[in-house]
């Protein structure tokens, strides 16, 4: 009907226009990264080589895995500072179990179980006991780090089991296993976020917890699950790290949490919850890794690396900002 059409908010032409715009907004980050990658390949010696690119991916494998679950966590308007400690603890525990029992299965099981428990504890504290997420996970961060030191007596725990060590080292189609695991995480969590009730409810409780609760979403349970999964994936990252460095080190991955959260935010995940794109997170992770990689390739002085990292971080978000300019005021 005429009336309805005229009245409707947007004409078809305007709609296509908006779609295109939306597309640009959605894919500007990947596009930007492709351009960056091309430029670096052309200008930075050794950058565009299989070994370097594989090395780059390997260097962000751990961050990437955990960023997938951190994305869910941030999307639900939460926060997790305990991931760095969990990596260390899972690695140490796995190494100890391995050395005592010689069983890879038991070692991996113990590590993952520890991650699940830590995550669930975070979740219960935050969802049911309503402790502020920053404080709760800061507390578990301290406690878990303490445990890692205590069980290992502060010493690195050596690993001599070849089957376990091989995991971090071996390659399939030229790609190291840790990179493949990380890629799998992106696929799995991308699907989880976009194609499952779990993912949509996560966004819903981050976007408007009250609305989600009123629609019958079991907000508390969901939050515990998110943290639990985060714990398990983080523990897995810790075990893989232990395998790569052939030991469980209690002081590994300090400051890791900030790297992961930054990668997510760089990828457009909102700290205020309700917004997340797996693609963005991937790009965020890659940007972080690329910056580090290129600076080392170019022999940038350690002190200037700080400066550069800051500048590039800013440049990335400012560019990202441009496209949303004028959208709101």
């Amino acid at each position: 009907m005429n009336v309805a059409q005229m009245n409707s908010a947007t004409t078809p032409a305007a709609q296509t226009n908006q779609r295109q715009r939306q597309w640009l907004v959605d894919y500007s980050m990947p596009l930007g990264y492709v351009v960056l990658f091309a430029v670096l390949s052309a200008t930075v010696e050794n950058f565009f080589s299989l070994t370097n690119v594989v090395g780059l991916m390997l260097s962000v494998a751990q961050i990437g895995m955990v960023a997938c679950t951190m994305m869910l966590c941030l999307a639900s308007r939460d926060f997790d500072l305990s991931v760095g400690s969990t990596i260390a603890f899972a690695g140490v525990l796995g190494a100890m179990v391995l050395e005592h029992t010689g069983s890879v299965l038991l070692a991996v099981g113990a590590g993952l179980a520890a991650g699940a428990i830590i995550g669930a504890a975070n979740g219960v504290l935050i969802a049911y006991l309503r402790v502020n997420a920053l404080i709760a996970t800061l507390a578990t961060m301290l406690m878990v780090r303490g445990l890692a030191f205590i069980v290992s007596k502060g010493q690195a725990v050596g690993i001599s089991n070849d089957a376990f060590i091989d995991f971090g080292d071996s390659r399939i189609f030229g790609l190291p296993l840790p990179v493949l695991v990380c890629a799998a995480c992106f696929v799995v969590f991308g699907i989880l976020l976009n194609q499952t009730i779990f993912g949509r409810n996560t966004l819903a409780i981050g976007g408007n917890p009250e609305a989600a609760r009123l629609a019958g979403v079991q907000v508390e349970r969901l939050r515990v699950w998110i943290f639990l999964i985060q714990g398990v994936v983080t523990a897995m990252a810790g075990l893989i790290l232990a395998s790569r460095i052939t030991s469980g080190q209690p002081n590994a991955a300090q400051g890791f949490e900030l790297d992961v959260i930054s990668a997510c935010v760089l990828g457009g995940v909102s700290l205020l919850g309700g917004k997340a794109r797996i693609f963005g997170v991937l790009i965020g992770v890659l940007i972080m890794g690329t910056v580090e990689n290129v600076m080392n390739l170019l022999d940038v002085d350690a002190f200037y690396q700080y400066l550069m990292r800051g500048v590039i971080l800013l440049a990335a978000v400012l560019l990202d900002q441009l496209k949303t300019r004028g959208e709101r005021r």
Partner: protein
Amino acid sequence: ADAVKIGFLVKQAEEPWFQDEWRYAEQAAKDKGFALVKIGVPNGEKMIAAIDNLAAQKAQGFVICAPDVKLGTAVERAARRNNMKVISVDDRLVDGSGKPIASIPHMGISGYAIGKQVGEGIVAEIKARKWNMAEVGAIRVAYDQLPTAKERTMGAIDALKAAGLVAANVIDAPQAKTDTESAFNAANIALTKNARFKYWVAVGLNDEAVLGAVRAAEGRGIKADSMIGVGIGGAKAAENELNKPAATGFFGSVMISAKEHGYQTSVNLFNWITGKAVPPAEVQTKGMLMTRANQAEVRKQMGQ
């Protein structure tokens, strides 16, 4: 007389090295019958707070490895203010203009000298393996934001240069943090950039750093026969590596004696407080290169 209580302050309580120092200091406390308070002091602020805290506990003195040697004046003042005796361990304290502080007795190592020992150990092994110096690339896993780290690695590189390594063969791999993974990532890139070398050697501020470089090399098929990595410290991380059934690129570690540092400084301070003896102004201890071949012996000599 009053019961003697002394503090033992270390800059990085989580580091195995300092855990060992503490352990031996405790041994001394038991042997001599004094009380020991151990506090980690990761930065200048915490250090001053810890000294004040010791004063509140009525300690008469403390042994310290400060988070930065330039904190010397602050340590001296805080000790004087609280009427405490102080001995420095590991790192020698200096004043605002960089001169060692004479009033604080010291027992420790010179970062540069230890580094030199690392370099010399590597040179000896290069010669033993009959490598051509021109074909050797040297990875310096760098963490220059930490002055001792810089001293150590520069000492090692200087020793390599003295043996004929040209500057162009030295490759800096700056690590973002001091853990093994950061060293791995940094070394990985260094290896990527310099595929031209046949052989590799690696140095770093500690065993963890060198371990990272060794693992990165392995990832590219550079195994024990074409890699010589020598770390510093000789604690568990090195032990794990040296006890592996097959040799790895981690050739050895320059071990320093936590026992001597921990035990002897505490006893010296105790004697000073109780008026038995004034400690010597400066004692430099030496490190020993520990390899697969000699590790049992070195450990015994170092008392560990």
